């Protein structure tokens, strides 16, 4: 029974069902047990399923549960598929997901909608598992949209504040744009290749479409649209920072374990297609590069602790895209995994900070908290080190692999590498800016805040700290999936390159220290220059994308909606009505009720007839 793939997404779904159908009537303790327990069980089962695959990465297990829909030649099965790639994913999703759930049982303990929270979280995990296990793109799309829905429900979890609702809708609609592109991609793939099964599609694409064929370009572009939306890459990245409106564990779940990695997973899953369209693949790399730089700049200017982390996520996913774009599939998945560890750590630690400081988000109102919040401090230190790719932390290995792979490709490779290294520099700056401002210096407020903690909240942090530090030594079993002889290009790289890649993040940390740790330099003084100020404003608003989209899409759409609120087609109908009513009004006036007028009309009529008779 436990080797059934179908059970894996079903366990969280069962949790969801129990919590949903009970309608909030269960005691909190049971809700916590059901909510976190279902994910815990799922994690155990995922381990059971994934261990054989880790031992032998050519192992593939498949299970068709039933035929979902079949019409004529179109058939989509509810079929699940487990290989090295999905093994990594299910472990990350259920493992990190379980820790987040465990943490949430403590974090959310005072919330009135405790049960609703866990119900949606479970559904979220369940959808994500369907997404990564699906053997066909339609089922993948089911999970894909399920994830989107749950993110909407969770971001808008505190629904009574309209701005949360706005953020939630923004997230859903923005990703829906990408989803629609992906749906069209599905239509194209089925129409051309006659199947939506991923294996068949990839084989079909390889055999039927040549390298660089138009179909491959179109299909991969459309799928890329979907991936860009879910993974918050340019140009659809704007929803992610606003998605911070939800409770912090949700941010952790969205950023680390689930949603945003879906795009990376999709591209990795359909990598054959992207290899057939090298231009599109290069585009992926450049999107990743542009996003990581953009987000890096923006992260340096933010004040909200969660927004900083959000931009860092965008930036790190940018690295993954960069890796995908240069064909370093394994490296990207590796980075996805390590990122899941340290980003979950950072978010959960941020949650502790926020909860301990009574929902304070502004980092400049914190300061000197390392004594008060020791666990959070340790978590932040380790998480930030990993994020900044400090040597031998988990982030170091994965980022290294991606950058080396970028360097290895001909042509634009060097530029991609330079961009990535510059991004790493910024990562160093902004991650430690956060650490220095929050935990060092003087205490900015007079509160003597106690760290909110407890086993359920501390334990996940501990575990994640270990993985964030040492996760780099885990090797994801994806070599067989990508079957490329990419891997070890290290021997061809000079030590200089290595030195640069180690030195740059350290330099970033150092700069950050000078600004915010030692306060030898001051960012405020920098801002006195008008150029710097302008740039700061620009970066602070996320490069003005929100304003751009508001002007480009939202306003015209709303304007259009307002312009024609009453449906001009109806006014055509209304015109017919008005004309006949006017005619009626005119004729009614003739029928005045005056007898003399009637006689006059009769005589007039006869006179006209006579005259006409005379004339003709």
């Amino acid at each position, binding site marked *: 029974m436990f080797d059934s793939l179908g059970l894996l997404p079903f366990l969280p779904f069962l949790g969801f069902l129990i919590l949903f159908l009970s309608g909030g009537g269960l005691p909190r303790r049971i809700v916590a047990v059901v909510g976190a327990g279902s994910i815990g069980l799922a994690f155990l089962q995922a381990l059971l399923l994934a261990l054989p695959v880790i031992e032998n990465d050519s192992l593939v297990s498949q299970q068709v549960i039933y035929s979902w829909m079949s019409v004529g030649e179109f058939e989509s099965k509810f079929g699940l598929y487990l290989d090295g790639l999905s093994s990594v994913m299910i472990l990350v999703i259920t493992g990190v997901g379980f820790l987040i759930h465990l943490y949430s049982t403590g974090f959310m303990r005072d919330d009135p909608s405790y049960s609703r929270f866990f119900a949606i979280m479970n559904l979220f995990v369940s959808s994500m598992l369907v997404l990564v296990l699906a053997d066909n793109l339609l089922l993948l799309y089911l999970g894909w949209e399920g994830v989107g829905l749950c993110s909407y429900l969770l971001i808008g979890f505190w629904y009574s504040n309209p701005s949360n609702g706005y953020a939630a809708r923004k997230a859903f609609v923005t990703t829906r744009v990408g989803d629609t592109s992906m749906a069209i991609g599905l239509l194209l793939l089925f129409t051309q290749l006659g199947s939506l099964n991923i294996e068949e599609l990839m084989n079909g694409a390889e055999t039927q479409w040549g390298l660089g064929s138009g179909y491959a370009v179109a299909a991969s572009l459309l799928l890329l649209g979907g991936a860009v939306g879910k993974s918050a890459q340019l140009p659809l990245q704007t929803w992610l920072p606003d998605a911070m409106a939800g409770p912090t564990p949700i941010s952790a779940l969205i950023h680390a374990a689930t949603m945003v990695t879906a795009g990376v997973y999709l591209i990795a899953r359909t990598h054959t297609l992207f290899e057939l369209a090298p231009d599109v693949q290069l585009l992926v790399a450049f999107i990743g590069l542009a996003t990581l730089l953009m987000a890096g700049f923006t992260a340096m200017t933010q004040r909200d602790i969660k927004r900083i982390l959000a931009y860092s996520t965008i930036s790190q996913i940018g690295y993954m895209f960069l890796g995908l774009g240069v064909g370093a599939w394994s490296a990207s998945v590796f980075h996805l995994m390590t990122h899941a560890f340290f980003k979950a750590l950072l978010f959960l630690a941020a949650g502790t900070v926020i909860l301990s400081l009574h929902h304070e988000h502004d980092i400049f109102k914190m300061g000197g908290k390392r004594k008060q919040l020791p666990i959070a401090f340790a978590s932040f230190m380790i998480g930030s080190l990993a994020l900044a790719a400090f040597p031998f932390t988990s982030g170091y290995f994965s980022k290294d692999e991606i950058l080396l792979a970028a360097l290895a490709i001909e042509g634009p490779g060097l530029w991609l590498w330079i961009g990535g290294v510059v991004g790493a520099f910024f990562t160093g700056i902004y991650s430690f800016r956060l650490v220095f401002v929050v935990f060092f210096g003087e205490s900015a407020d007079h509160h003597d805040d106690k760290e909110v903690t407890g086993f359920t909240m501390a334990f996940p942090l501990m575990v994640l700290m270990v993985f964030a530090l040492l996760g780099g030594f885990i090797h994801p079993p994806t070599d067989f999936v990508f079957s490329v002889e990419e891997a070890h290009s290290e021997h061809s790289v000079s030590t200089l390159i290595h030195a640069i890649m180690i030195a740059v993040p350290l330099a970033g940390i150092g700069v950050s220290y000078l600004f915010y740790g030692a306060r030898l330099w001051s960012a405020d003084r920098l801002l006195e220059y008008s150029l710097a100020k302008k740039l700061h404003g620009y970066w602070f608003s996320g490069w003005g994308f929100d304003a751009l989209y508001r002007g480009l899409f939202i306003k015209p759409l709303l304007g259009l909606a307002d312009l024609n609120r009453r449906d001009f087609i109806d006014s055509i109908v209304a015109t017919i009505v008005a004309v006949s009513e006017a005619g009626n009004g005119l004729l009614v006036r003739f*029928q*005045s009720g005056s*007898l*003399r007028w*009637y*006689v*006059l009309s009769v*005589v007039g009529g006869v006179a006209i007839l006579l005259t006409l008779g005379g004339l003709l």
Partner: protein
Amino acid sequence: MNEIPLEAGLLLATILFAIGLLGVMTRRNIVFVLMSLEIMLNSAGLAFVLAGARWGSADGQIMFLMILTLAASEVAVGLGLIIQMYKKFKTVDIDVLSALKG
């Protein structure tokens, strides 16, 4: 006997008809309207008699008799209505009766 031009007789009938019509169209007093109607009926009768005389037949006169009975009953009913109208509206202005409106 002398010859009377038919044209002259019909012209008389037409003139009388036109006068009656003019009266019906212009007068607002309903009694005058009824009188004008009588003139018109008469002119029609005259035309019948003329036509009968033209063919030397009695049929025209018989038609006149029909018109006569018609006129008699019309006047009887019409005058009854005038009295009712006067009772109800205290006026003989025909324009007051304008309920026949669309």
